């Protein structure tokens, strides 16, 4: 990236070269229809230092976390509640939910708002990397040492070692519902 000043000062030859490079980048033929099978849009994010992907179809929006109110008497995986344009949403700590070791402090500061039928909630992540294409058929199976909630909700691992998190199953699961009486 160049600043405006730099561009003005740049000599025309160099400018042309940059533009040409960019044109080449854009004009790249679309990737051939491969036999990778079904393709879905995924959202790639970081949790501690691991990469996770979820089906972007269930993502409503991503918002920065400004204020979080802890909710007493709720299970540990409920980090708290937030105000999203007047709506009160619960925020889930995936690390606790999945039983990942609580090692390291993270910079959890993005909330991914998810929705499936009438369940709407947020999950807290460290960093959003971006949208990626996922080929579910190409996912590798997880190591057999993985057990418990991780085994239940992680559906595979990509070639780039991102973990595919089955967000639809998660949102449909009754184990995320808090329904407790005194």
């Amino acid at each position, binding site marked *: 990236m160049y600043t405006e000043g730099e561009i003005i000062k740049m000599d025309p030859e160099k400018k042309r070269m940059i533009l040409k490079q960019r044109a080449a980048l854009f004009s790249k033929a679309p990737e051939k229809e491969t036999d990778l099978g079904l393709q879905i849009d995924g959202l790639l994010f970081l949790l501690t230092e691991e990469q996770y992907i979820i089906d972007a179809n269930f993502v409503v929006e991503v918002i920065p976390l400004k*204020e979080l109110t*802890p909710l007493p008497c709720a299970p540990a995986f409920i980090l708290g509640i937030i105000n999203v344009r007047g709506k009160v949403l619960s925020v889930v700590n995936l690390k606790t939910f999945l039983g990942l070791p609580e*090692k390291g402090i993270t910079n959890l*500061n993005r909330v991914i708002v998810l929705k499936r039928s009438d369940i709407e909630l947020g999950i807290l992540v460290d960093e959003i990397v971006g949208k990626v294409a996922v080929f579910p058929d190409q996912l590798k199976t997880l190591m057999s040492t993985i057990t418990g909630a991780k085994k239940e909700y992680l559906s595979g691992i990509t070639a780039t070692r991102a973990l595919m998190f089955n967000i639809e199953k998660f949102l449909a699961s009754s184990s995320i519902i*808090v329904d407790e009486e005194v």
Partner: protein
Amino acid sequence: MNSREEFLKKIRATFRIEASEGITNLTSNLIELEKEPPEERQTQIIEAIYREAHSLKGAARAVNNTEIERICQSLESVFSAMKDKTTKVVPHLFDLFHLTINTLTDILAIGDTGEITSAIRDRVDEVSLKLSQVEKGELAAIEKSEVVLPANPEPVIVPVKVALPEPQKNTVKEPFGLKQDNTIRISIEKLDNLLFQAEEMLALKQIFHHFGDGLHLTVKKLSIWAHEAAEVSLTVSDAQQKINGKPAGERLTPFEEQVKKMAQFIEWGTSLIKTVEGDLGKMRKFSVQETYSSGAKIESLLDEVKKMISVPFSAILDVFPKAARDLSKDIGKEVVVVISGAEMEIDRRILEEMRNPLMHLLRNSVDHGIEKPQVRKQNNKPEKGTIQLAISRLENNKVEITLTDDGAGIDLEKLKRKYIRQEKIPVAEVDQIDEQVLVNYIFKTGISTTEMITDLSGRGLGLAIVQEKIEQLGGSVSVKTLQGKGTEFKIQIPLTLVTFRGVRMRVGDREFIAPTSKIERVLRLKKTEIKPIENKPSIPYQEGFIPLVFLADILEFPFKDQEDDHIMIIVFGSKENQIGFAVDEIMDEEVVLVKKFNRQLKRVRNIAGATVLGSGKVIPILNVSDLLKSAVKDTSYRGLAKGVEKQKEKSAILVVEDSITSRMLLKNILETAGYKVSTAIDGVDGYTKAKEETFNLILSDVDMPRMNGLDMTAKIRADKTVADIPIVLVTSLSKREDRERGMEVGANAYIVKSNFDQSDLLAVVERLI
């Protein structure tokens, strides 16, 4: 999912909405027709049913739902025949019609993914066959008992001949072109979003208010200045006169020059501040006016939006006659439901919440209220029981729902026996209890006068839940009964979601709100007045003693006693069941709007919901009846000596971190270890706080907006007053250069987040303090 699949999914979803509306319309029309209205109205209803069946048929065909299509086809033919008066409307046909509707509903409930079972297919065959027989007048003579057997297709008459699809003898008049309707469809979600945002405007109103108050304070400060300035101004003009009074030609001394300059500056300053004061005054006046006028605009906007999300009661009541009919048939009773006032509109969110309670009361009436036909006959009552549901508008923005049945009434003798058993009172005393008190006892959990638990409502929990739900909505419910004559439930609920007055309190750094109406009293007591009774803390209250619990214990979060000789206590509960809850501070009373939790938080112990303050901050609302229950169960016992003795001076640590979760985590770890912790959100904030207060150590993140941790460290080191404070940097950067850079600017330690460990952090902190 490919786009075609997606499209199909969408149109099936649309169909389901359309179909369920269609079925609702069919049902209510059938119910009305069954009541044998005047001939003229009958014709209208038949026409309406015919049209509804026709359009449902078309819609079903569009999504390939052959079962629904077939049934609607047959239904359409029957009503077409009725229109043409070739078939008559006879009462016993209605069982078949309702069976038809039930079948439609069941098919619809299967959804996209489910399989159409052969049982369903058999029912479709049966229903269509019978309908076509009706159309031909063949079934008109059949006894109704033969028609009712739904689940078992065997005894069905041998299919004579399968009805052919009816010839296209009727051309249906479809409305062409644009309908002259003044209504449009908007998804509920969009309306809800609109409402949420309109509600947010209330916060804006409060912000305006605070802003106005701020301006007022500023103006006040200036008036203090004016007072002081008046005293100085005499001295100033005195000095000026002396200087100006010097004989012409005599030069001013350098000191006099200085005084003259200062006097001029003070004069200029005074007039400037006067202008600013005037400007501020105007601004304040303007802001007060605007606060009022925009406040009024916001209120009216919110009112309009609330009207938009209002729906008539009929939206949920339309299914009641049908439900009552089905329920009563199942248990061999006959019931008619008469509804009045269903056109009354109410906030959809409230109506949604009322659906289950009302349905429960209806079931309750069908199940326990209305007697079996033979019993009714013996008692000189019509065989058919009547349940009346009347909706009427009350003053003060409330509606009253009255549900009356002409059944047997509540069995007081049974209720008495329950009362004796559950409340453990002597048998002799039960007769002294006021009858109304006894009747209201049915709302207590665990009570149902039906000895036998039936599928419907005899589970006892029901009425307690009904009452809880209604009270949550800010309403009330009462019951009256007359032996042998019937029972009447009266419900009053607000038309729109209510704001309520709540008291805001603080425990540690958490805030909560409790409805003012549930608070008995707020007390401030000396800690020495807390005395153990039966090994539980208690406090003197009114004439006696009541137990004391700590709100933080009940809400299950750690907190520390305040270093104060006094303690703030809120008393909840009534009469014998009063309990004191200790908090750190009672803040203020506010008018708050209850925000329901999202679906994930279906029910949270001790917390009823949340509200959003003017600042946007979310505050949990306490569920007082839960708290009282929890307090009784609470077994934790706090030592009492603790509060009286002052705790020793603790080391103070400043945590500088922009991420709120990390900030909370660090704060928690350090506080648990016994440190006094303050927080700052970035370098600038951190530097300011470091100078304002005294800290024994600063723990800071590196990557932060405005000023990063390295720059802040450098700045603190360069400032003599704070240069000696040990600084620990915590960061995700783990490169060697970064660490070196950290040491260069003067940090004492460097902790890398990815291999962060609580005990490491505490060890480092302890070593440095």
